[in-house]
């Protein structure tokens, strides 16, 4: 029989406001094994912890029940308290009478009754607890960063700076991401390439960083500190280590009508291409969908002109297997499709463009060499209408837009409007807004400058309809402050499209067993206190894959994720979780049910020799669990038909004792 101490916490009024804590302590006194039961205002405080330690010494306690907040909050605290008083930390159980009781009930008698029941269940479990000792696992001192935009680049640089090797996996032929496509950056208006390309060069030159471009993660196994990752390196039909990036192949390639995705299809590239001048790695890639040689074997010009002999039409996808201690997700975002917003005539007119397309139209390396010209006729637009919140804050049209605010549009639209007025003062610029949201250092000042110094017309209201008529775009909109409907003949309409997580994020989350919200943004372990960690141990989040973010925020989060990774990789060993599954070989019937349901690949089957009562031997196939890989999810214990699988710390007998205590 255990000697159990029960400690009921008030949590100020958080618990004591709805639960009669004294009555709970009193009621639990009579439970089997309970030697002492008491209450205190803040059990987690130093004096509260001292109270537990004193009680352990005075009453020679062997088990502790703390009725308090969620174990996610203070389980570690109380385990440490117990350990420091000489009790095995796994002899502590938390009855969650806050989140699962006082916070969800208003009525004191009901809350009190439930708290008592939860306390009884915890006492019943502690009676069956056994001391557990966690194992240790080694840490592979290498990090994987998935995504090579500014988030991934910054994270990789920071990790490498601490001396750990990092691999970046980028699905495009070059790193750089969305930031490489931008022209200027708010609120300082420095050119995006001028501040991004030095970082790209740093990555390329850093001997701790390897770039796997044109590659994807296809499989992830293992657990924190010991991930086994398979990377698929797509065939680019160019030997990466031989190509000098001279561009002779691009000049000679006859297939010149391939939509250039870097310029969002506003101009063309060749079938063999380097996305942009500062691409890293500066290596050509052959697009197999357009290359004549790969499609029908007729051409081969690039191979003929390549002085380095880098072209290899027979190249195949390559699979690389590598071990990592930590994985950082930095898969970024994309603007949503505008095709469904018929009212803005995006599909009908070339002169209705998205803001990212506008970036390319004003970028010196873009399709118009930086001159702001209409995509339809190449003329200079004199009236430009910017529409904010296209698809953002769009609750009613889930199939069209997104419920959330995309956060970055107010600032980049102010930037576009300001730069247009600065470069082309003869242009009328209208911005239709619902709210202007510019929290951030020097952000609101920036927006006000667009209005006050650059004369951008900000109009509170929305555009309802855009109709192409002749070479004009008829814009029908509302001005809510003047209470008028406006009709503007515009030359160019720019839509601030909502942003969404990259499509690769969802399948990646499945591979990583990392959780996502309904919008496919990765969920953080805690929205305030653990913002760069995924709830899955060893998986970290960087940039817009976690939620809409601008560059300053992305860079800070990238650095934060890196510091978390460094903290992990700096350890030589990780203390594991002792609450893992174990199999009773005598009961195991070798059915493999547990192996099939195990999400971590922790269960293997081996043939084992058993000595039978009649002195013969029998070879049976039985399950065994690798405790270093097992995460203690318990799926196998449920799947096991013979009851051979059980979980340390959460044994079936313990769970049943809790259920009995609740139902008593």
């Amino acid at each position, binding site marked *: 029989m255990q000697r159990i101490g029960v400690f009921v916490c008030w949590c100020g009024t958080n618990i004591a406001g709805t639960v009669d804590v004294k009555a709970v302590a009193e009621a639990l006194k009579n439970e089997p094994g309970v030697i002492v039961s008491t209450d205190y205002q803040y059990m987690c405080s130093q004096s509260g912890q001292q109270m537990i330690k004193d009680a352990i010494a005075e009453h020679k306690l062997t088990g502790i029940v703390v009725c308090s907040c969620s174990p996610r909050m203070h389980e570690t605290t109380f385990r440490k308290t117990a350990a420091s008083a000489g009790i095995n930390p796994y002899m502590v159980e938390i009855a969650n009478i806050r989140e699962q009781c006082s916070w969800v009930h208003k009525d004191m008698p009901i809350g009190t009754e439930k708290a008592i029941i939860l306390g009884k269940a915890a006492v019943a479990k502690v009676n069956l607890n056994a001391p557990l000792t966690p194992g240790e696992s080694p840490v592979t001192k290498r990090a994987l960063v998935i995504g090579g935009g500014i988030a991934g680049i910054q994270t990789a640089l920071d990790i490498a700076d601490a001396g750990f090797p990092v691999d970046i996996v980028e699905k495009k032929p070059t790193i750089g991401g969305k930031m490489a496509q931008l022209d200027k950056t708010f609120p300082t208006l420095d050119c995006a390439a001028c501040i991004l390309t030095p970082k790209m060069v740093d990555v390329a030159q850093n001997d701790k960083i390897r770039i796997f471009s044109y590659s994807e993660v296809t499989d992830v196994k293992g657990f924190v500190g010991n991930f086994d990752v398979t990377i698929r390196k797509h065939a680019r039909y160019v030997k990466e280590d031989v190509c000098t990036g001279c561009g002779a192949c691009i000049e000679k390639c006859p297939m010149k009508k391939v939509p250039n995705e870097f310029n969002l299809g506003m101009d063309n590239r060749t079938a063999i291409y380097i996305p942009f001048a500062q691409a890293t790695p500066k290596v050509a890639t052959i697009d197999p969908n357009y290359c004549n040689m790969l499609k029908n074997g007729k051409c081969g010009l690039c191979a003929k002109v390549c002085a380095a002999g880098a072209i290899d039409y027979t190249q195949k996808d390559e699979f690389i297997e590598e071990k990592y201690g930590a994985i950082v997700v930095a898969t970024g975002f994309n603007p949503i499709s505008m095709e469904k917003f018929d*009212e803005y005539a995006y599909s009908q007119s070339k002169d209705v463009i998205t803001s990212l397309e506008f970036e390319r139209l004003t970028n010196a390396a873009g399709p118009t060499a930086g001159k702001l010209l209409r995509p339809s006729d190449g003329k200079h637009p004199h009236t430009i209408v910017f529409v904010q*919140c296209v698809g953002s*804050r*769009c*609750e*009613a*049209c889930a199939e069209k*837009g997104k419920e959330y605010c995309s956060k970055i549009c107010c600032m980049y639209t102010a930037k576009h409007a300001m730069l247009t007025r600065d470069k082309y003062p003869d242009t009328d610029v209208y911005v239709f807004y*619902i709210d202007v949201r510019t929290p951030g250092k020097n952000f609101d000042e920036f927006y006000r400058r667009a209005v006050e110094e650059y004369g951008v017309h900000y109009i*509170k*209201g*929305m*555009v*309802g*309809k855009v109709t192409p008529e002749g070479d004009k775009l008829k814009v*029908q*909109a*509302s*001005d*809510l402050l003047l*209470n008028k*409907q406006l009709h503007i003949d515009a030359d160019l309409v720019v839509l601030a499209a909502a942003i969404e997580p990259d499509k690769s994020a969802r399948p990646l989350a499945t591979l990583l067993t990392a959780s996502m919200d309904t919008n496919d943004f990765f969920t953080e372990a805690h929205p305030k206190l653990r913002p760069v960690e995924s709830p899955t141990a060893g998986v970290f989040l960087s940039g817009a894959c976690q939620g809409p973010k601008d560059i300053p925020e992305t860079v800070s989060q990238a650095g934060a994720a890196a510091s978390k990774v460094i903290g992990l990789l700096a350890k030589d060993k990780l203390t594991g979780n002792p609450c893992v599954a174990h199999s009773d070989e005598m009961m195991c019937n070798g059915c493999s049910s547990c192996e099939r349901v195990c999400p971590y690949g922790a269960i293997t089957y081996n043939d084992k020799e058993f000595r039978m009562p009649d002195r013969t031997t029998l070879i049976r196939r039985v399950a065994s669990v690798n405790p270093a890989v097992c995460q203690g999810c318990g799926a196998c214990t449920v799947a096991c038909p013979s009851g051979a699988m059980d979980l340390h710390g959460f044994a079936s007998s313990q769970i049943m004792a809790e259920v009995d205590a609740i139902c008593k």
Partner: protein
Amino acid sequence: MSSKNERLRDEILKRSGVNPKKCMRCGKCSATCPAYDEMEYHPHQFVSMVENGDIEPLINSKGIYRCLSCFACVDRCPRGVEPAKLVEAVRLEVIRKQGANHLTADGVEAFLDGEIPQQAIVSALRKYSK
């Protein structure tokens, strides 16, 4: 808000099924309305006036008959507020005030005979149970 206004507002909201609190004041309904200049109260005003119980001016407004019921505002509203349904509900209020159609759903049964098409019975029940 006076109790009369409150009663009127609740009646209009119940009848239309509209929740004006969802409105985020973007004005896309008024931006999209083809009858905008014909109406003294524009779709976006309709929503906030109903929310504030300001129904009398709407009842007395000629503009409610200018609404084409084209539902462009309903289609384009990013928050699913459906202003056109409020206009329809106010029109219904006028009709009922005139006393011409003083029926309840329970009263429909008394008019039933073999001649009335089924569709008419269904729509009468639907109309008067609002």
